[in-house]
């Protein structure tokens, strides 16, 4: 599936959308980490909790559960709530 990566994570992937495979969001993120080592831990903590400013959208719908099923052809968009000062 196509994965759209936000700018803070493009140091791992480069500027263009990337590909990942997996039957669930969790497995897709694991596959993404195999392709781009270290990227998952920047989004998901060691207790498998999504970090506070990370959001996932599948085909434009926000998902909150890492076990949500994914299908070939889905688009996964990773969004960062940019804030600060």
């Amino acid at each position, binding site marked *: 599936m196509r994965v759209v990566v936000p700018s803070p994570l493009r140091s791992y992937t480069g500027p263009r959308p990337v590909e990942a495979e997996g039957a669930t969001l969790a497995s897709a993120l694991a596959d993404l980490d195999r392709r781009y*080592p270290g990227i998952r831990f920047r989004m998901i903590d060691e207790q498998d909790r999504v970090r506070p400013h990370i959001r996932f959208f599948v085909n434009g719908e926000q998902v909150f559960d890492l076990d949500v099923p994914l299908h070939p052809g889905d688009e996964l968009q990773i969004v960062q*709530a940019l804030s600060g000062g």
Partner: protein
Amino acid sequence: MPVQDSRTPGRRKSSPGRVVLLVATRKGAWLFHGDGARRTWRVDGPHFLGHVVNHVVLDPRDRRTLLAAAKTGHLGPTVFRSSDLGRSWNEARRPPAFPKAAQGAPGRAVDHTFWLTPGHASEPGTWYAGTSPHGLFRSSDGGETWDPVPGLNDDPTYRAWMGGPQDGTPDGPKLHSIVVDPRDAARLYVGMSSGGVHQSRDRGATWSPLVKGLQVVEDLDPSNVTFHDPHCVRLCPSNPDRLYQQNHCGIYRLDLPSETWVRIGRNMPKRVGDIGFPLVVHPRDPDTAWVFPMDGTSVWPRTSPGGKAAAYVTHDAGRTWRRLDRGLPQEQAWWTVKRQAMTGDSREPVGLYVGTTSGELWASRDEGERWSCVARHLPEIYALEIGERA
């Protein structure tokens, strides 16, 4: 690090090596390379612009490996490693992280790595990391992978003393001041804000508190380790049985085998007090140490007292203190020097360096007698370390 007989601290000739200042800030890291005389500085940076960098440390065992503890406001924490003095960086393959908790149990997650300490000279590749929330981690492969130290992190008594993520500093609890005895790789010290000072004699397998003699705020019970808030603990390399500490409640000295701290800050001028964050020890004279006091009155502004910036030095193990402010601003200097933002080199005379919350970098080539500004307009400086090159 050389260990000399504490009774004859002696004076070595100036090292011919150059020094590099490793500046960690709220928005990136900078390296300032000094010339041989430490008069001019070449800036290299920013590195990791926009990342929160809590600590950058040069490995004194090879003098070229740098480790940097970083995160951004939006991404999880990690550690970066450079083996060419910052020309290129690689991310740790497994950064410091707590073990996955059992199903249904609340698990801890590292918010940020706050402190990095190279291991003993006999253990090349070994590093220690302190995190927020409180956690001690060790790497045996030069910072590539990190493992928790369960003897501290998972001990039930220590878990109680550590409290939760809501305890500690406004930016979370911090495990800091990881000290390795230069005589013995198994002997470790750590500080926890809050949570006290602790020692291990078996490389972190077991720990015991080292808080006797320390005061705590208000009328709280000093026998409760939770209430103790060490800001910075330093061991004297020329006498590893002597430790100094800048605490939330004063400046202290400990001379082992005694395990009772002595408050030496009572001898500071009353109008200045003995509250602060950092403390620096002399590399060769265990009777000499420097502090940088801050205002710890009323609501704790944590700025230079009266807006007049100054370091203070003792040359007699804390019996007397002398003000060192020549060159530093003596009006409207409302900044703070954080606990890891003051350091010294091992040259003769010792160079002292201070990084401020207002993004200024100050240096003294003569043990604090005269200060000059090396850089302004940096982001808030979180940590300042010295790297000494061959």
